């Protein structure tokens, strides 16, 4: 199934967490400033094998910045970023890939006009033959891509068709299958369900669960708390660049999660003031006391 014989990434899929409870990827007080704009500040995040860590937040909350740090597109400017307990600083996505951190971006990082199998192996092509005549092992790549996609339950008529002809959900699944095949230990999914319909979202959520079953650590970025709650083991809510909530599944209910996502904590503190204003309905807003889930670093300024 997940053979590592191609191995240009050099990443080896480890079956079980070797060092007990050590997280695969850990952020400690990490942050990122673009010039004098602080996009992300004081974020703690842990990714464990076989767990889905959901990162939620509204637009501009810093979700994208967070995954760009982890996937190697940007570098953090404060705090620590550890992989397998070692502090790291990636300068290219390639380095993150070599550590087994694969990202499925919102735009999926596929080339629409290229065939499915070429997209599947892009950047990590299988080759055969000595150097001057080293060539693509097309037969093996097609066979492998077909097998891997079938293992994920995707059956395509023709692997030669441009990937742009697939539906959004199918493309998402191809991208996930690709990451899993290339020995990813940590899978970052950037809003995989954002542009999908209900049924296709279900398919993608199924593959997230499948990836977790395979022992991968998954970072699932979304702004849909319902989708997050279906597969998540741990929830982190970002708000204006800081961590508003960090709770495991047992500590938080879907309702609380939704409230936090909707800016509930801020609204609750405003409830008293809003109640004075005629025409604002505050009955449905939660009381501050209702939000019992542990709140991390909320005392920090909202920069």
């Amino acid at each position, binding site marked *: 199934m997940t053979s590592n014989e191609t191995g*240009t*990434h050099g990443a080896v899929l480890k079956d079980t967490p070797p060092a007990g409870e050590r997280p695969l990827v850990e952020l400690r007080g990490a942050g990122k400033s673009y010039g004098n704009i602080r996009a992300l500040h004081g974020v703690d995040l842990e990714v464990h094998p076989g767990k889905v860590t959901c990162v939620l937040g509204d637009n501009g909350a810093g979700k994208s910045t967070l995954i760009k740090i982890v996937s190697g*597109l940007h570098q953090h400017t404060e705090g620590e970023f550890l992989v397998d307990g070692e502090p790291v600083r990636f300068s290219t*996505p*390639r380095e993150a*890939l070599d550590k087994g951190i694969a*990202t499925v*971006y919102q*735009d*999926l*990082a*596929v*080339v*629409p*006009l*290229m065939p499915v199998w*070429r997209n599947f*192996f*892009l*950047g*990590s*092509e299988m*080759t055969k033959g000595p150097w001057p005549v*080293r*060539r*693509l092992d*097309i037969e093996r790549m097609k*066979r492998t891509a*077909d*097998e891997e996609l*079938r*293992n*994920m*339950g*995707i*059956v*395509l*008529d*023709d692997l030669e*068709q*441009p990937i*742009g*002809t*697939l*539906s*959004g*959900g*199918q493309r998402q*699944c191809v991208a996930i299958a690709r990451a899993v095949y290339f020995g990813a230990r940590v899978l970052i999914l950037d809003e995989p369900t954002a542009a999908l319909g209900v049924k*296709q979202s*279900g*398919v993608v959520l*199924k593959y997230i669960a499948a990836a977790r079953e395979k022992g991968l650590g998954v970072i699932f970025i979304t702004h849909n708390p319902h989708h997050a709650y279906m597969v998540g083991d741990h929830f982190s809510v970002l708000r204006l660049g800081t961590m508003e909530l960090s709770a495991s599944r047992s500590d938080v209910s879907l309702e609380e999660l939704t409230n936090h996502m909707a800016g509930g904590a801020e609204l609750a503190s405003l409830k008293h003031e809003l109640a004075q204003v005629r025409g604002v309905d505050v009955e449905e807003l939660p009381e501050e006391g209702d939000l019992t889930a542990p709140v991390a670093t909320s005392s920090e300024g909202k920069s």
Partner: protein
Amino acid sequence: MSMTQQATPAVGTPPAPGPKQSDGRTRQRPLALRLLARPEVGVFLGAVAVLVFFLFAAPPVRDGSSMANILYQSSTIGIMALPVALLMIGGEFDLSAGVAVITSALTASMLSYQLTMNVWVGVIVALLVSLAIGAFNGWLLVKTGLPSFLVTLGTFLILQGVNLAITKLVTGNVATDDISDMDGFAQAQKIFASSFEVGGVNVKITVVWWLVFAALATWVLLRTKYGNWIFAVGGNKDSARAVGVPVTFTKISLFMLVGFGAWFVGMHQLFSFNTVQSGEGVGQELIYIAAAVIGGCLLTGGYGSAIGPVFGAFMFGMVQQGIVYAGWNPDWFKAFLGVMLLGAVLINLWVQRTATRR
């Protein structure tokens, strides 16, 4: 359009690994549509049409030596159209390609003549200069993120001026001196500008080089990692980078490949005419780009072939010479080109729309 037949997401069906390969793959797109989706098919049909047309319209074309002449004409465009096409598939284009040919020829010619050295010294230095021009184009493009139109328009103007000014400065003339009596000339001419007999017809060696380069380019494009990267950087640069394709290397090397092509054609011109006119080459870059586009390469990158531009260049040579053989006013040539170009662009547009349709 049934090009976009898809499997429905097989949610409930159990995966079928193992030998049951044919499962669910029986439905194929109709053969005609699959063929039309190949980038070189449109231009192949076009080339055949033009050939048949002139076989009827211009009886001298049926002669073997005229055909050799047409092929020679095509090859001088075609050799350069190949790297230009690869570059275009890689998402960029090079306006300096036309004058770079002359720059290369001038370098080789003036260097060997002025320093009275073996012409091979000039040839090697010219190669280095051409590669350096390509590398400069690519490096500037990658570093600044400017569109290739601007970057290479700049190099185009620089080279055009430098060609004229340096030549006048060195030789006091607009052309270089005749180098045909210098050491190594005969040897170099054999490689770049000789001809041979096939069945009583005199065939120029550039035709052979053209086809050899085309075969090589096709192999690289379709069968190697590098070829995969070319499609990827042209199709979606950011995606390519995100999955680990060395985008910078691919782009710069593609520009250097155009430099190599410019060097080769420049050497051909030098060794077949013995002197070089410093003001030439302007406008040629558009001919190369047109041949690549007619050959089915997408101007915006990510799609095309190496064999398409071969037919594209052949159409050029055929029309250019065919009009002469037919005894028409050669002014019609450009009008023909325009029609061919527009036709090719429309076909490309249709292909792109159908290929990306969900």
